[in-house]
């Protein structure tokens, strides 16, 4: 009962409320609506914790069972701890003081904890070490005034290390990963755009037309017609198909959402 009925009830109540709220412009309904949205934001905060926990579990597990490529899990852990440290501290002045020893101590603390989790048997040893490093970190944090923790203002998000790690590591990794698409799109086009049957041919032709349109050099060769044709493709069949798909998807969404609210579809909610 507690495991099944109550969640179903919650879904029904809040779902149908937000459904009908849409038709009630009155202040009070508006207010409750915004209030509920806030609730979701707040719950999201706790989801964060769940996520991080899972992340650590996975890697501890990997290290524990010496899974293929387990050594790299340390990289992940170190990267994570380091970045978090940057995200919560900031320099007060220009010089660094004992910041990097502190960083090392923190990282080592966490690594020791991970080891303790992963090790079979001598976990206590690692925990001891963790405690030691934690103490060291605490001492440095206490004595060193060149930098400090900023829980109050978002200063650390602008802090030097955080920004630099973001700009030089995160962004370049992200952007590069993204840019791989340029290669993949080519190989995919080569492999898949073959006139095997009507549909494949249509796919192929449309792609060819549109691609050759973005191409000032081909303009004189294919002439005005191609770009006109590709415009037509974009404005007529594309419009029709997009509209059909959008409607279909909208339909599917509405149906699914309705099933959820009515409790017909509850596969997303565990049983037992």
């Amino acid at each position: 009962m507690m495991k099944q009925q109550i969640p179903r009830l919650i879904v029904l109540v809040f779902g149908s409320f937000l459904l009908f709220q849409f038709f009630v412009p009155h202040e009070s309904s508006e207010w409750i609506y915004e209030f509920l949205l806030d609730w979701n934001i707040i719950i999201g905060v706790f989801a964060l914790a769940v996520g991080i926990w899972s992340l650590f579990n996975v890697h501890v597990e990997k290290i524990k069972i010496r899974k293929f490529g387990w050594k790299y899990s340390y990289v992940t852990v170190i990267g994570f701890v380091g970045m978090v440290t940057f995200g919560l501290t900031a320099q007060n002045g220009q010089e660094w003081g004992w910041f990097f020893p502190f960083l090392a101590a923190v990282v080592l603390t966490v690594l020791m904890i991970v080891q303790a989790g992963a090790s079979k048997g001598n976990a206590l040893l690692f925990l001891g070490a963790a405690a030691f490093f934690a103490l060291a970190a605490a001492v440095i944090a206490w004595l060193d005034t060149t930098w400090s923790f900023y829980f109050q203002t978002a200063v650390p998000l602008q802090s030097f290390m955080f920004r630099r790690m973001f700009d030089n590591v995160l962004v370049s990794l992200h952007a590069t990963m993204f840019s791989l698409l340029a290669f993949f799109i080519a190989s995919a086009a080569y492999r898949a755009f073959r006139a095997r049957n009507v549909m494949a041919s249509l796919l192929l032709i449309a792609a060819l037309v549109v691609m050759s349109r973005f191409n000032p050099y081909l303009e004189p060769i294919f002439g005005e017609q191609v770009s006109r044709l590709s415009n037509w493709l974009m404005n007529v069949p594309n419009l029709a198909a997009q509209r059909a798909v959008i409607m279909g998807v909208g339909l599917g969404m509405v149906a699914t959402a309705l099933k959820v609210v009515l409790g017909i579809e509850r596969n997303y909610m565990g049983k037992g």
Partner: protein
Amino acid sequence: MSRLAVVVFVLICAAFALSWAVRAGVTGGDHALREAFLVTLSAFMTLAIMSFMYRDNPYYKFAEHLFVGISAAYWMCVGFWSTIVGNLVPRISENLSEFFKVPYSGGGLDFDLFFLPYRYFYMIPIVLGILLLMRLVPKAGWLSRWPLAFIVGTFAGLNLIRYLQSDFVNQISATFVPLFVEWHGFGDFIGQLSLAADGQFVAMMTNLIIFLGVLCGLIYFFFSKEHTGWFGGASRLGIWILMITFGASFGYTVMGRISLLVGRLTFLFRDWLGIMS
């Protein structure tokens, strides 16, 4: 680790050390070393990921795992600042928001709801959040279904209605295109029948095609009727139109993807190697 791997590793280290030194020399000024290092680092990351195009290798693995760690941390920090500090704190308590130095959005005057200051009701989501944490406790894991149900439920209701309006009613009424564009009787129509792109005939054809296209597309998505006879024909037409569209949008996308590669290569050539203006 094979001998070859070691050699390669050493060579790569040497290459990047060199580029670091050169870069530092070129930039000059104070912090030259640091800046040069950062650029070199990000160049290394770039190449490490690109090496994936050849095959999976230790450098890619390194970059990948670092990426996961750092990104998770980034997401956590931003989440902490923007969600906890930015959204939760200002709503629940004035003192806390004074501590966190964020404007207290409960407003100077809050009103009562069921005889309680309404901000107390923010305790409900907090409790739900704690229930979510119950996942970590094997015994009480099922409690976490309540918050999940809440999230799913509220947004099911919300999306239901929003999509119904925008993806549905609006799209339908958008299909109400006039079949007879500036219609002045049939004779007139025959009189000035032309294939000019902006002509009346073309405009009417366009509208007609769009309309039929939408219908056929919808027919293709019928699940509970056999696609045979005229119905099958229509649905085939529908999927053809879909395919044309997909081909077109594939072609359209190539452009964007190449821009991204351009971006990366520009970085390598200009900021790292400095071989272009």
